[in-house]
């Protein structure tokens, strides 16, 4: 230690002051740009105003390994902790989404993107070949399920003992089959207060019904209410009606119409109907000054009937219920199979089969779907990877 000089002086006050003022300037300059960015504005020097208002899409996906495409471009592959995707910087207009996964049905939707707003959607992908657990009336002594004929409309996950014999003396009755079969019994049977009868009711009566119960409750008519959504018939059609609070209502119940997706440049601006009137100049809308507080809303006093017809593929609906754990998806038993249909009818409703076949009935209990073809009962395995 021979150093006898102070070579490092204390930080001069003026230098500190200059640094402080510089940082204040950085704060003042950067903040407006951050606000613009955070609210969806982007710079586009090709446009006359240089500042463009964009929107976003948020799509949630069940399961991993799915690929999300927006306008044909792959944007995300879902993983364990990345099952949703938020796309921003999207031009105002209609965009096409599809979610695909090997071995699964593809979910496709066209959705509108509005200025400074995010359009939400939830995709679902059912297996092309359903995975099932077969429940038959008979079992071998070792518990193996006995079937007459191999099911061809599904892939069984349990070992089956296929036989052509009708003799059952060597087999044991499967009690599970008996208890499940009771759920597919006559309509006079009451199970936990759930009695479903097919009865045509007046649509207005359906809308005027005032219950807002959140409980999974079945009424004496052909309606089911769950999570603020009421499923019920009006004539031959099945409707999903929002009966919960306005704050909780999914936007698609009162979504306005929008133009279809086109690969050509979108020239017509998409605007919310409530600001359009006869005197609205569409050219002016494109260049109107932005507002900091845009609002995508269904005003409470707007005449909107939050009711959506469920696509039944022009077949009669033999049975219906909510998909387990969801109030956005409906399970329908139609003439040619059991299907899952999404309630969201923006552009169209995706319909994917759970199991094809005629005269199929289904029953849902404890997040399991059981399908009955008159002979065997199939537990549909709703696995997610």
């Amino acid at each position, binding site marked *: *230690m*021979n*150093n*006898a*000089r*102070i*070579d*490092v002086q*204390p*930080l001069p*006050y003026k230098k*500190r002051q200059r*640094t*402080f003022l510089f*940082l204040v300037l*950085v*704060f003042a300059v*950067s*903040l407006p740009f*951050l*606000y613009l*960015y*955070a*609210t*969806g504005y982007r710079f586009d020097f090709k446009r006359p105003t240089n500042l463009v208002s*964009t*929107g*976003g899409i*948020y799509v949630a996906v069940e399961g991993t390994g799915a690929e999300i495409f927006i306008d044909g471009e792959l944007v995300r592959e879902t993983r364990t902790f990345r099952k949703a995707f*938020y796309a*921003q910087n999207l031009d105002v207009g209609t965009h096409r989404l599809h979610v695909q996964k090997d071995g699964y049905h593809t979910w496709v939707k066209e959705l509108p993107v509005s200025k*400074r*707003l*995010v359009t*939400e959607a939830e995709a679902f992908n059912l297996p092309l070949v359903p995975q099932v657990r077969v429940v038959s009336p008979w079992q071998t002594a070792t518990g193996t399920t006995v079937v007459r004929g191999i099911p061809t409309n599904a892939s069984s996950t349990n070992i089956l003992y296929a036989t052509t014999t009708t003799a059952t003396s060597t087999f044991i009755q499967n009690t599970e089959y008996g208890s499940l079969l009771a759920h597919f019994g006559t309509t006079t049977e009451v199970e936990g207060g759930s009695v479903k009868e097919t009865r045509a009711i007046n649509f207005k009566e359906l809308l005027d019904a005032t219950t807002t119960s959140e409980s999974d409750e079945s009424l004496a008519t052909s309606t089911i209410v769950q999570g603020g959504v009421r499923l019920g018939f009006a004539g031959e059609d099945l409707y999903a009606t929002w009966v919960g609070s306005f*704050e*909780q*209502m999914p*936007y698609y119940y009162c979504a306005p119409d929008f133009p279809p997706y086109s690969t050509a440049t979108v020239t017509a601006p998409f605007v919310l109907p409530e600001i359009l009137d006869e005197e609205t100049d569409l050219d002016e809308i494109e260049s109107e000054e932005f507002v*900091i*507080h*845009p*609002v*995508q*809303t269904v005003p409470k006093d707007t005449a909107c009937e939050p009711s959506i017809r469920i696509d039944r593929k022009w077949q009669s609906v033999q049975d219906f219920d909510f998909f387990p754990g969801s109030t956005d998806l409906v399970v329908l038993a139609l003439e040619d199979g059991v299907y899952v249909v999404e309630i969201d009818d923006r552009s169209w409703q995706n319909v994917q089969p759970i199991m094809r076949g005629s005269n199929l009935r289904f029953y849902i209990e404890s997040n399991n779907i059981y399908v009955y073809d008159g002979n065997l009962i199939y537990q549909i395995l709703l696995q997610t990877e």
Partner: protein
Amino acid sequence: MLPLFTKRRYTQPTMAKHNHLLPYATRPDFKVGRATELTGKNRVLYRFLEILPGAASWSSLIAMVLASIYAPFFAAYFIIAFAVFWVLKTAFLSYHLRYNWKRLKHHMSVDWKLMIERFEYEHLYQLIILPYYNEPEEVIEASLRSLSEVRYDKKSMIVVLAREERAGENARIVSERMKEKWGDTFGGFHVSVHPADIPGEMAGKGSNATWAAEDVRKTILDPHGIRYNHTLVSIFDIDTVVYPDYFNCLVWHFMTAAHPLKSSFQPVPVFNNNMWEASALARVVAMSSTFWEMVQQERPERMATFSSHSVSFQALYEIGYWQTNMVSEDSRIYWNLLLANNGEYDVIPLSYPVSMDANAAPTFLGTVKNIYKQHRRWTYGVENFVYIVYHFTKNKSIPRGTRIKIALQQAEGYWSMVTNPIMLIILGWAPIFFGGRVFHETVLSYNLPIVVRDLLILAMFGLVVSSIISLTLIPKRPEGKNRFIYVVMALQWILVPVTMVVFSAIPGLDAQTRLMLGKYMGFWVTPKVRN
């Protein structure tokens, strides 16, 4: 036995009881500790000021939640602005930190003994006061050993082991052993015994140190004619281990100070004594305190004294030593001195370290508890804000601009320490949860967590700097410790977002709330554990 370096024998005049006090220090409320010690309007004012910090902090946090519910757009914009402010503040403080690191390293390489040769300093005495309670003997031993190894004339050093009578027989035995072992090493070695249960006193370091100082004055300074303005008092925590050139560095700064008798001298506390034994959590918390002090060393106009520091005996005598009725006496002494000297008092940063203990306990949960309690005691320093503002309304001799500036700086410091981490790390997501349907459908609500996250990541780059600096400040790795510990020491800084909230903001809020509710805190002795 003390050497007589003084060329003239100076006899301290016999003073009337308060004649040695500066005029402002003679006020009956000069050493107020809490509102209950006052009466009338003064009490109302003091009580109001005690409520203010906690009320401001709680109001801010509640306002954030309410804004998220009723004005989510405004809340979102505020959070973004706040995150930007945080990044820039981090950058600003990091700039100071890096500069002081450079200065600290340089000061540790300077030969201070050589530096002070040009001065006449042999007349100066170093009075080292070591208050203790029931700390382990090896802790006291380490402190005394380090004093014995300084590159300074030990015969000019007077060591005072300030014992608490209430600590009992063990403490007495330890003090006698230490005196026997180290008594001849120094010019003077004195054991003072602070009686228990003196009315009006709060048991703690302040009351103990004050007793010791007055005891030394009567038993050593006056009988030997040692002048108060020739005596530098170093009031050290008992676990303080000084570096070899501390007193040389102190003398240099004393001799070159513009107003040496109106200045306190603040070293940089590094918590290195048990660095290798402490948990990662304790190390991060301790080093964060060191970094804060290093930042303050480059902003001396904002500094107050903290923990171990030095000051002239004359300055102390002029205000009647430390307060005996409150917790954070280490910083309160600075404010006493500032007020008594009508604003003409400085803290001079030494940019030279003293080593102390990081908080450690036999179990991890014990460590967590101790760190929390220690920081709650430190952040109870908000009682100084009350004291300052109260006296700023009384002492008009201090320029108004100075009073306003100091009050605002202190207010911002105590408010931001408590609210900023909570607002950023927890409430930053409040609009997303409480914002309502209309807000949830906007790009703003989706981008808010992304923007805030990205800004916080940017701010965390400062942790890389902290990590590097911390590795240069730690002592040599002992034998038996795996080299992998360096990796742990570098990566431990990832704990900062947690420690900021759990060991800074929350104990700070706890302390402010106690003060607000009138549940005054007592002194808590930090347990010292050594392997």
